[in-house]
C-alpha cells in the first residue's frame, strides 16, 4: 500500500478524516521502515516536521483558510537551501553545512502549508545519472534495489516512488529529475527555464538549471506548480509571468497533433533505444490516438549533437560555479603548505569526488585561452541549432513525445567505471534542457517488470499544455 498523493492528502486533512500530525507520523514510520534499504534521505527532520504538523492542525482548528498544500509532507534534494537543514550537495566538501536562509521555491511550499520532512541523497553537485556519485549513499530503485534509481535527484525520486512522501523537489540540468522519474515509475516535470525561481538553489549549470518537482501523478504536479511557479525579483532569469493555473479539461485531445521525432526512435541515430522501451512507447502513442490526437512524424536533425553540446556547456558552467568552493567561505577546509593557492587546491582535491574533478577539468579545458572559441562558443552555436529544430517541429504539432531514457533502470555499477557510457544515458533529456522548453516524464508501462518513462515536450512557456497532455494520458491509462 502506498500513501495518498498531494491532492488526496490535503483533502483528507482538510475534511478532518485525518490530521496533519497523524498523516505525517504515517510518513515517518514508512521512512523508518524503508530508508535503511532504499537510502532516499540523508537527514530526516522528525522533530521539526512534527512541530510544524501540530501547528498546522491548530491553524485549521482555529478556522484559518488552509493553504494549497496544507499538511503535505515534502522532501528536498540536498542542493536546495532550507534554513537550518543540511545542504551538502552530496559532497564531502559541504559536510554538515546548514543553509542560513530558505530558497524561494521552498518558501513557497512552506507558505502553502507543506511540511519539510528531510533532505535527500543526490549525485555530488548534480553530476551523475545514477545516484552513485554521492559522497554519502546511493539511493536505490524501489522496483529493484540492485538497480539505479537514476540521477542526479535520486533520493527525491525514491522518496516519492516508495510512498515515503507524496511530493519532492529535485533540480534538472540535463535530465536529473526526468530520468529518475522514468526509472522509478513516477512523474517528474522540468518546467520552462525560468518558470520556478532558483534563488537558494546551489548552481551547477546556470543557463540550464531548473528546480523541478516529483509526484506520483500529473494532477499532483499541477498542484505543486501552482505554488512553485511565478516571477521572483531575486532571480534575474525568472519568467515575468504569474503562477501557472490548472485548466480544467475533459481529458480528450481532439485535434491535437503529437509530434514523434524519428531520431528518438531510430537506434542508428545514437539513441541506443531498448526494444522493450520502444514497444511501450508505441503502445503509448496508440493511446494518444484513442484520445483523439493524431501522431505525426517530425525531425530534429541536430539531436545527435546534443550530448556533446550539453557536456561542453554544462561542464564549462559547472567549473565556473564550483570555483566558489575553495575552503574560504563554505564547508570544510584542508591545509597544505602555507600559501592560499595550496590551501584551495588541497581543499578541492580532498573535498571533491572523481566525477566532480573530471567535469571541473573538462570545463576548465573548454574555457581556457586558445580553446574557448573552438569548443565553448561553438557548442553555444550548435545549441541555437537544436533550439531552432524544436521551434520548427512545433510548427507541425502541439507537443512532442519521446522515451525519457533509452533503457530501463540499469544495474548499479554497470556504468560507473565508464563516464562516457554514463553521459550517453542523458541522450534523450539534454535536448529540452538546451532549448529551455518544458518537459514532463510520466510512467507509460513496464518492460521486464521495470518502469518505462515517456517524455512530453512543448514549446517554451507552454508548460500548461504539456501538463494537460500528460494528465489526459494518465486518465486514459488509469
Amino acid at each position, binding site marked *: 500500500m502506498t500513501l495518498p498523493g498531494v491532492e488526496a492528502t490535503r483533502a483528507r486533512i482538510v475534511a478532518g478524516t485525518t490530521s496533519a500530525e497523524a498523516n505525517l507520523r504515517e510518513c515517518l514510520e514508512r521512512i523508518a521502515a524503508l530508508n535503511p534499504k532504499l537510502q532516499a534521505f540523508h537527514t530526516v527532520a522528525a522533530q521539526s516536521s512534527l512541530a510544524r504538523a501540530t501547528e498546522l492542525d491548530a491553524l485549521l482548528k482555529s478556522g484559518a483558510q488552509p493553504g494549497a498544500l496544507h499538511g503535505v509532507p515534502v522532501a528536498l534534494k540536498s542542493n536546495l537551501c532550507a534554513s537550518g537543514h543540511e545542504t551538502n550537495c552530496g559532497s564531502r566538501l559541504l559536510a554538515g553545512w546548514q543553509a542560513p536562509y530558505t530558497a524561494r521555491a521552498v518558501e513557497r511550499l512552506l507558505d502553502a502549508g507543506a511540511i519539510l520532512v528531510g533532505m535527500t541523497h543526490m549525485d555530488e553537485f548534480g553530476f551523475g545519472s545514477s545516484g552513485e556519485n554521492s559522497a554519502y549513499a546511493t539511493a536505490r530503485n524501489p522496483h529493484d534495489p540492485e538497480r539505479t534509481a537514476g540521477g542526479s535527484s535520486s533520493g527525491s525520486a525514491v522518496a516519492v516512488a516508495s510512498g515515503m512522501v507524496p511530493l519532492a523537489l529535485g533540480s534538472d540540468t540535463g535530465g536529473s529529475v526526468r530520468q529518475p522519474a522514468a526509472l522509478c515509475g513516477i512523474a517528474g516535470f522540468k518546467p520552462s527555464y*525560468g518558470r520556478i525561481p532558483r534563488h537558494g538553489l546551489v548552481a551547477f549549470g546556470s543557463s540550464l538549471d531548473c528546480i523541478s518537482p516529483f509526484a506520483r501523478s500529473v494532477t499532483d504536479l499541477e498542484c505543486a506548480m501552482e505554488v512553485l511557479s511565478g516571477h521572483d*525579483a531575486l532571480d534575474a532569469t525568472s*519568467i515575468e509571468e504569474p503562477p501557472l493555473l490548472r485548466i480544467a479539461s475533459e481529458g480528450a485531445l481532439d485535434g491535437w497533433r503529437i509530434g514523434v521525432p524519428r531520431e528518438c526512435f531510430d537506434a542508428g541515430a545514437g539513441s541506443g533505444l531498448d526494444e522493450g522501451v520502444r514497444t511501450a512507447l508505441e503502445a503509448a502513442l496508440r493511446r494518444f490516438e484513442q484520445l483523439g490526437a493524431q501522431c505525426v512524424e517530425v525531425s530534429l536533425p541536430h539531436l545527435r549533437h546534443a550530448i556533446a553540446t550539453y557536456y561542453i556547456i554544462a561542464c564549462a558552467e559547472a567549473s565556473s560555479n564550483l570555483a566558489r568552493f575553495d575552503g574560504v567561505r563554505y564547508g570544510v577546509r584542508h591545509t597544505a603548505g602555507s600559501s592560499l593557492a595550496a590551501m584551495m587546491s588541497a581543499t*578541492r582535491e580532498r573535498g571533491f569526488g572523481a566525477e566532480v574533478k573530471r567535469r571541473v577539468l573538462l570545463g576548465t579545458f573548454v574555457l581556457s585561452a586558445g*580553446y574557448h572559441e573552438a569548443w565553448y562558443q561553438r557548442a553555444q552555436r550548435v545549441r541555437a*541549432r537544436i533550439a531552432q529544430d524544436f521551434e520548427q517541429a512545433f510548427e507541425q504539432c502541439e507537443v512532442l513525445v519521446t522515451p525519457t531514457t533509452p533503457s530501463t533502470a540499469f544495474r548499479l555499477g554497470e556504468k560507473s567505471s565508464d563516464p562516457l557510457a554514463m553521459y550517453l544515458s542523458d541522450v534523450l533529456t539534454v535536448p529540452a534542457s538546451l532549448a529551455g522548453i518544458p518537459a514532463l516524464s510520466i510512467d507509460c508501462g513496464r518492460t521486464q517488470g521495470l518502469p518505462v518513462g515517456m517524455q512530453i515536450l512543448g514549446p517554451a512557456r507552454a508548460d500548461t499544455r504539456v501538463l494537460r497532455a500528460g494528465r489526459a494520458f494518465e486518465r486514459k491509462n488509469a
Partner: protein
Amino acid sequence: MSAQPAIDLVRLAELARLSLSAEEQAALLPQLARILAQLAELEAVPLDDTPAMVRAGASSGIARADEPQPSLPREALLARAPKPEDDFYSVPKTVGGEG
C-alpha cells in the same frame, strides 16, 4: 577543436585549483582524452552564421530595481565558514613570499 587535443593536465589542474596525485593524473588523462575526442564531433556541424545561444530563450534576464535590501546577518554567514576570525574570513598569508 581537434579530435585529439593536447591536454596539459598539470596546467589544467592548476587553473582548476586541484592538486591531483600522480595516480589520479594517470587515470584522468586517458579519460579526458576519450571524452574530448567524443565532444570534438561538433567540429563537423555546419553552422553558417548561426549566433551563439547564451541562455534559454524563455528567460527575462532583467535585473531588479537598484534599491538597497536587507542582507543576511554577517554572523550567520561567518559561522558557516571554515575559519572565521572576528568579522572576517581568514585565509593563509597572501602577500610576501609564496602566494
